[in-house]
């Protein structure tokens, strides 16, 4: 093969993926490891990569402890109720107590944060969100990472982690290929921080054809955060907790600022408020513990996002769609109108394009909303990801094995989407998690834990062969047919992706089945997944770009398999509105107030499932919110 092999040796900290998590890791690693070699391997260009590539109009996780707004334990309570109890409170608390320092740094670096003219505090759009002009959010944090890393390799698709051959279950680096030159890259490293993306497009999107890439989460987020970790034998948690988002129809424009800052509301086709109608029925499914509108009203405790989805879905299924966002009132105020539009331009330009194309001006017309296909990620309002160690001063023994954010594989750390059980981290929290992982990785090396790592040439060569196999396969078989993409000996990555999306949608609870599944469906789906995996062995790539898509597909398939296994294991409907187990429609706290943990044996491909304790470290009761105090 004509491609060169390029080896980077003696790396101390390898950061795989440089979105918000990876940039945070590289930045902080330089402070704690001034003598250490820090290298970034990024699939795109670090200046515009990851989910924040096009910008972000809000920082969705900021405590404001400085202004007396919230304390970290408040955030734990919030994320816990939003995820129906299922979170790693130690990791959440730890992220929350550091996140403000991250945001304050961002402001010092030049990120334009809006301020409330009356109080001088950052302009809030909700209890946890502050408003920013974030078009250049990613280039700004990329500058920080570029100043800290020794070397940045852009356009490297990391396909596998390297494993140490002198000690079992210890990481030794990573391998991948350059999507432009095709060269094979070997990174030998003492520690690896996986800060790759979660999974978009593992479920069939609502749009079709040319529109298939118009999804809510970035189409280049290919589940590598999970594909890399699962294949290395890391334990995963909460992979059943996929997220479905209520968004502006077709464009997937965000609704957060609209609800919270512009004070818009939703209504059904008759112009009626519909959510509260569904609460009594839903309360029977999930119990008063998780849905108590009176308490929510009194304490400002939010109604969990998934339950609001449930009301939306049921209203539409009852024939009272479409659901509209009432924007016509707020948009009469020119300032609010500007905020509404810039909210899109700063982070979801596609929505503005759609409204321009369809002559929808939200000042004169209430736009339609819909629910998205499901996504698997660990940093937004859902907590999929690796089972990681927490910090030593907060975590109970089951959650602590020495190094913060270290997975169950030694020397292998996670940040952002890669860390499980820590929803509501968003951009600032992911950057913070990267910082925490980097400090811990430096400590791990200083403690001598990474001594004596050995990687044989045979491991490196085996991976090389595996990586380029789709190109070989194409070369051998494409000439058997006259032309075209229909071939009895192979499928191409797009065909594979279409098959994955169809079976995830139909068997694992996507949009076309109203997010419904059951044991029988899941088992059939898993069987089809295994056959798909056999076919992936015959995946063919015409060029290096298709090879990139081939490996993205492989990571997506591995992620999807894990979602199947976890969904099958949790025999209850913990998050109605995200998905439903038709055979166990009720939330079952008696048997399932647990975190789910899986491990895939890298040698056999067998999954081991277990329940892990769900520790509640923060008290449930919160002081009543300010207005209540005033009344008292």
């Amino acid at each position, binding site marked *: 093969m004509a491609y060169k092999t390029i080896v980077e040796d003696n790396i101390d900290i390898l950061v795989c993926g440089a979105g918000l998590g990876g940039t945070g890791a590289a930045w902080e690693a330089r402070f704690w490891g001034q003598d250490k070699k820090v290298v970034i391997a990024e*699939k795109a260009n670090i200046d515009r990569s990851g989910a924040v590539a096009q910008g972000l109009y809000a920082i969705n996780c900021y405590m404001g402890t400085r202004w007396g707004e919230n304390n970290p334990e408040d955030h734990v309570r919030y994320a816990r109720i939003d995820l129906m109890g299922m979170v790693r409170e130690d990791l959440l608390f730890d992220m929350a107590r550091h996140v403000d320092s991250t945001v304050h740094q961002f402001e010092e670096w030049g990120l334009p944060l809006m301020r409330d003219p009356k109080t001088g505090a950052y302009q809030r759009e909700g209890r946890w969100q502050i408003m920013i002009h974030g078009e250049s959010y990613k280039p700004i944090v990329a500058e920080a990472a570029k100043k800290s890393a020794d070397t940045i390799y852009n356009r490297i698709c990391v396909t596998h982690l390297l494993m140490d051959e002198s000690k079992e279950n210890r990481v030794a680096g990573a391998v991948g290929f350059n999507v432009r030159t095709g060269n094979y890259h070997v990174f030998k490293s003492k520690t690896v921080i996986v800060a790759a993306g979660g999974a978009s497009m593992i479920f069939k999107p609502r749009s079709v054809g040319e529109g298939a890439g118009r999804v809510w989460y970035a189409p280049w987020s290919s589940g590598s955060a999970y594909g890399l970790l699962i294949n290395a034998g890391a334990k995963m948690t909460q992979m059943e907790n996929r997220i479905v988002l209520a968004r502006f129809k077709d464009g997937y424009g965000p609704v957060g600022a609209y609800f919270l800052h512009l004070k818009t509301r939703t209504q059904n086709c008759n112009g009626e408020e519909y959510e509260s109608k569904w609460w009594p029925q839903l309360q029977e499914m999930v119990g008063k513990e998780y849905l108590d509108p009176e308490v929510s009203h009194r304490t400002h405790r939010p109604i969990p996002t998934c339950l609001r989805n449930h009301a939306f879905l049921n209203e539409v299924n009852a024939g009272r769609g479409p659901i509209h966002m009432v924007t016509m009132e707020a948009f009469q105020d020119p300032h609010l109108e500007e905020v509404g539009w810039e909210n899109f331009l700063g982070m979801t330009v596609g929505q503005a394009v759609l409204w321009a194309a369809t002559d929808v001006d939200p000042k004169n017309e209430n736009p339609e909303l819909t629910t998205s296909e499901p996504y698997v990620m660990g940093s937004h309002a859902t907590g999929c990801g690796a089972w990681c160690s927490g910090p030593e001063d907060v975590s109970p023994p089951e959650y602590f094995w020495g190094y913060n954010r270290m997975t169950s594989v030694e020397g292998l750390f996670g940040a952002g989407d890669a860390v499980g059980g820590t929803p509501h981290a968003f951009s600032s929290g992911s950057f913070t998690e990267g910082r925490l992982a980097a400090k811990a990785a430096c400590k791990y090396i200083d403690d001598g834990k990474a001594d004596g790592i050995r990687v044989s040439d045979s491991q490196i060569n085996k991976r090389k062969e595996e990586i380029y196999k789709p190109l070989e396969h194409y070369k051998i078989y494409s000439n058997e047919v006259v032309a075209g993409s229909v071939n009895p000996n192979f499928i191409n990555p797009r065909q594979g992706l279409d098959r994955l999306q169809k079976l995830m949608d139909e068997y694992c609870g996507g949009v076309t089945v109203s997010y419904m599944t059951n044991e029988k469906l899941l088992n059939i789906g898993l069987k089809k997944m295994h056959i798909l995996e056999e076919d992936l062995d015959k995946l063919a790539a015409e060029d290096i770009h298709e090879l990139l898509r081939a490996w993205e597909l492989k990571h997506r398939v591995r992620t999807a398999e894990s979602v199947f296994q976890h969904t099958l294991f949790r025999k209850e409907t913990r998050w109605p509105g995200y998905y439903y187990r038709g055979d166990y429609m009720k939330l079952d706290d008696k048997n399932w107030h647990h975190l789910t943990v899986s491990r895939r044996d890298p040698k056999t491909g067998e999954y081991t499932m277990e329940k892990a304790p769900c520790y509640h470290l923060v008290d449930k009761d919160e002081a009543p919110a300010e207005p209540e105090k005033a009344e008292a």
Partner: protein
Amino acid sequence: MPTFVYMTRCDGCGYCVDICPSDIMHIDETTRRAYNIEPNMCWECFSCVKACPHHAIDVRGYADFAPLGHSVRVDRDEERGTIAWKIKFRDGREKEFLSPITTKPWGKHIPQLADVPAPDKSMRDSQLLFNEPKYIRMDEGDLHTLEAAGLKLKEGVYY
């Protein structure tokens, strides 16, 4: 909303190829100009549109739901630290917006951490990150702990 490239404006400089997060802006071998090789993997993130020095890249709404006849143009100016948007509806109405992208010049305000004093052992053993605790509360307040808030670590509950 996939991107496309105007033949007469593109000079094949490759800025879009360099920045595209989805690796879909490529140079056509015959015309030596850029084009979108895979529209159905485009996120209309506008990274290439913003990067193009000739305003040669544009976006058209996805064919499965967007009619023709609209445009959303952008001009990102790093020197002035602003981004300007011009939205043209299908029926001819227009809207314009201008926002800041940074409050400080690029390249100068993010410190080199290799140059700051190295952390000592007590810092390494603590839970603090770089510039903490100062940057957490900006008032010399220390790292937030449950104890500091008058709360006791609740004993783990195994359900």
